[in-house]
């Protein structure tokens, strides 16, 4: 019976070619616009650490006060003093302090010229908290942090460039002229978005850096973050007096804490509030505690990591699909009403209302299927052309896969069937006697 309905659908489509083609083309465009936008959207809103993002938190403490902060929000990084205080308090099961840096890299390999590479100064838990995969060796230990060890972890990419991809653990490189022992080489690791050290010149869809060294050692080397915000007129600070800089209210350090249960989160928040209140009591802050504790997901939302081009395009293409559906309802209505005589005859010959429903919904679904196939072609075209539509570092994340293709066809069928519901109901209301009498 179902096969017969499909044949009927094909036959009726053949009779009104233009209308059928219009419905199919409209559907294909509506669905593919949505799917291309969705492909970009899922690439830009993906969870960089699935399963863990709800346990990792970014604590913030307002150390600049209402006259310098923006709309009452604390700066997005901590001052060195506050970061060290949180670090020493050790109120979370795991915690890391970090900041992005830039290094001049030299190796003993004379064929590789000196180069500038980026990376992060971090504490030992960095690698375990963020599930960073290792190819050779491992990260450093808390003991290395305490010893201000000259140990470095480098990316697979840098290892290729400097050591030809060999296991380089134990070898040495020079960072800003200082010798470092290589403790580990990372596997390819490029979380999207780059969530852990976002700042003015680290953008969410940039590649991660190539060099990681202990925070304490980087501080000894007077290595500044690539961004820092100071509550001064120029927002800069004289760093030649490094010790004064470390004790200034300049914000530049990102802290992450791992908190497993809601109770842990509450008590950590309470700790932060207590800490800020203490600073107020000591006279360092002249404002009441203004703290934030956001988990990774909320943090990315707060930073508005998803590019506007992406969220706007999903909004507008969803509206486009809605308009297409309204359109398809009208066209389906025309198509089905035109066949009132046929329905009349079928009903008179004993077809039940249910049979009419079934026939017309099958017809809609088959049109949806064809629209979906055309939609897949257009979606692939759109994904292929994403480079022309989106910024390069976002476009390269966009890809088509089986789930996207299946979703395209499913969406097309579901959309058509939904928009055929009312026209089908109208068709099923056809009075057989009335139709037969007229003719």
């Amino acid at each position, binding site marked *: 019976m179902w096969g017969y309905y499909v044949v009927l659908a094909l036959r009726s489509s053949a009779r009104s070619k*233009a*209308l059928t083609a*219009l419905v199919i*083309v*409209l559907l294909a*465009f*509506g669905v593919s*616009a949505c799917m291309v936008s969705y492909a970009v959207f899922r690439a830009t809103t993906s969870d960089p650490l699935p399963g863990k993002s709800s346990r990792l938190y970014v604590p913030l403490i307002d150390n600049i006060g209402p006259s310098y902060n923006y709309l009452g929000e604390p700066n997005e990084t901590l001052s060195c003093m506050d970061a060290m205080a949180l670090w020493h308090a050790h109120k979370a099961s795991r915690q890391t302090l970090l900041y992005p840096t*830039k290094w*001049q890299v030299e190796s003993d390999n004379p064929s590789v*010229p*000196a*180069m*500038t590479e980026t990376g992060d100064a971090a504490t030992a838990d960095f690698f375990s908290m963020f599930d960073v995969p290792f190819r050779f060796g491992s990260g450093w230990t808390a003991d290395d942090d305490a010893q201000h060890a000259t140990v470095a972890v480098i990316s697979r990419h840098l290892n290729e460039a400097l050591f030809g991809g060999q296991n380089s653990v134990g070898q040495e490189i020079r960072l*800003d*002229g200082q010798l470092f022992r290589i403790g580990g080489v990372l596997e390819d690791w490029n979380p999207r978005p780059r969530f852990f050290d976002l700042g*003015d*010149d680290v953008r969410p869809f940039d590649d991660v850096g190539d060099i990681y060294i202990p925070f304490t050692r980087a501080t000894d080397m007077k290595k500044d973050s690539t*961004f*820092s915000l100071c509550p001064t*007129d*120029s*927002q*800069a600070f*004289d*760093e*030649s007096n490094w010790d004064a800089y470390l004790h200034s209210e300049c914000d530049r350090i990102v802290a992450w804490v791992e908190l497993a249960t809601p109770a842990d989160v509450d008590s950590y928040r309470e700790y932060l509030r207590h800490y800020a209140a203490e600073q107020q009591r000591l006279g360092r802050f002249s404002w009441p505690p203004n703290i934030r504790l956001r988990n990774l997901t909320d943090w990315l939302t707060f930073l508005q990591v998803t*590019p*506007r*081009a992406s969220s*706007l*395009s999903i909004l*507008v*293409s969803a*509206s*486009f699909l*809605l*308009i*297409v559906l*309204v*359109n398809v*309802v*009208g*066209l389906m*209505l*025309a198509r089905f*009403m*035109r066949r009132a005589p046929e329905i009349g005859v079928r009903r008179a010959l004993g077809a039940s209302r249910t049979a009419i429903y079934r026939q017309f919904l099958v017809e809609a679904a088959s049109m949806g299927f064809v629209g979906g196939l055309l939609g897949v072609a257009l979606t692939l075209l759109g994904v292929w052309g994403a480079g*022309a*539509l*989106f*910024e*390069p570092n976002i476009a390269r994340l966009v890809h088509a896969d089986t789930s996207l293709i299946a979703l395209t066809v499913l969406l097309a069928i579901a959309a058509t069937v939904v928009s055929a519901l*009312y026209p089908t109901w*109208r068709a099923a209301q056809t009075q057989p006697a009335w139709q037969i009498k007229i003719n």
Partner: protein
Amino acid sequence: MAFTRTFMQLRPIIAALGRHKVATALIVLQVALTLAVASNALFIVSTRIVHLSRPTSTDEAHLFVIRNGWKLGQTAAQIDANISADLESLRHVAGVRDAFPSQGFPLGGFKDDIILRLKLKPDQKTHGQLVTFFASDGHAIDTLGISLVAGRNFRPDEITVSGPNEKMSPASIIVTRSLADQLFPDGSALGKTVYLPDGPAAIIGILASLQGPLKQSDRLDRYTVLVPTHYLDPAGVVYLVRTDSTAMKPVIAATLKALQERGGVRIIDLKDGIVTMAQVRERAYAEDRSVALLMSILSGLLLLATAGGIVGLSSFWVSQRRRQIGIRRSLGATTGDILRYFHAENFLIVSGGILLGALLAFLANLGLMHVYELPRMPLYVPLLGALLLWLLGQLAVWGPARFAAKVPPVVAIRTE
């Protein structure tokens, strides 16, 4: 005449539409949604086009930027000597018109060392005027291809030396006209003294216009200051180079070669150490271009879809009403009457959609203002959208109406 005849027809049209409530409502809804979405999308496009079309006021076609990093361990004096030697060779490369060293460049983006606050009085308690600055020398104006509207250029003896951790206290500065007018609304900026964080400076020149390193902030990017200083940052220096011709590739290669003669002191990233102003502009506005392009394409598709829907439904109505049209024709209606009927009917339906759509458009705009910090949509945007939709509706119904007008009167007495 035609107008009154059309007007007389309105009552029967409305009566006829009453018999097709659902189909009519569908077109009205579709027009309304289209107007709401398309006018907001096109409004977003217009805000982005404003960004895209904002000039830096420099001679972009002939400018390129070298981001030159210094090898570590060099003293300020060594870096100063490096810069002087580099400039000497840069300015003598064939095809180079002029060059100057700075710490930033137009559209170069935010860094710690590009903003300053200028105060009008040394003891001013409020925050000074936020501005962006370029470290410059006497060659900056010629290199950037900008022009002074008043005052003079820097003299060689005015060029100071400063750095990220050193005081910057030049005796003189050059500002853009936007900034001059902001600081001294009475137009008396030339010769006045303003106060940098580290000391006073006289305004000796006023530039017609120059965009700073930032973009998209409505006025700050026009509040640009040239500071006569060699900015000795141990991390690196930016050389801006203006070429004679637009064929920059050979000149870039030649400058790179000239710099590599003293290659031991520097690191220039081969990937993006050297960028042309055209590339800088493309990267800086990539998001704007992307949004504008996407919204335009989607709006275009939207309008096409709506037009398609109108054609489809109108054709269906015409085929349904062949008998009725035949009767009207045999009672004396001309083909023109039939044409006008369908055009008037379409106008009525689209107008209904536009009324509803304008309301939806403003609601959507309110929502977008909230989420995306968009400005309020001016009234002319939905008005233009409405005109477009009226026109689109009339065009879309033209084919079906012509088809209807061709129905011969004899249809009235034929049973189909």
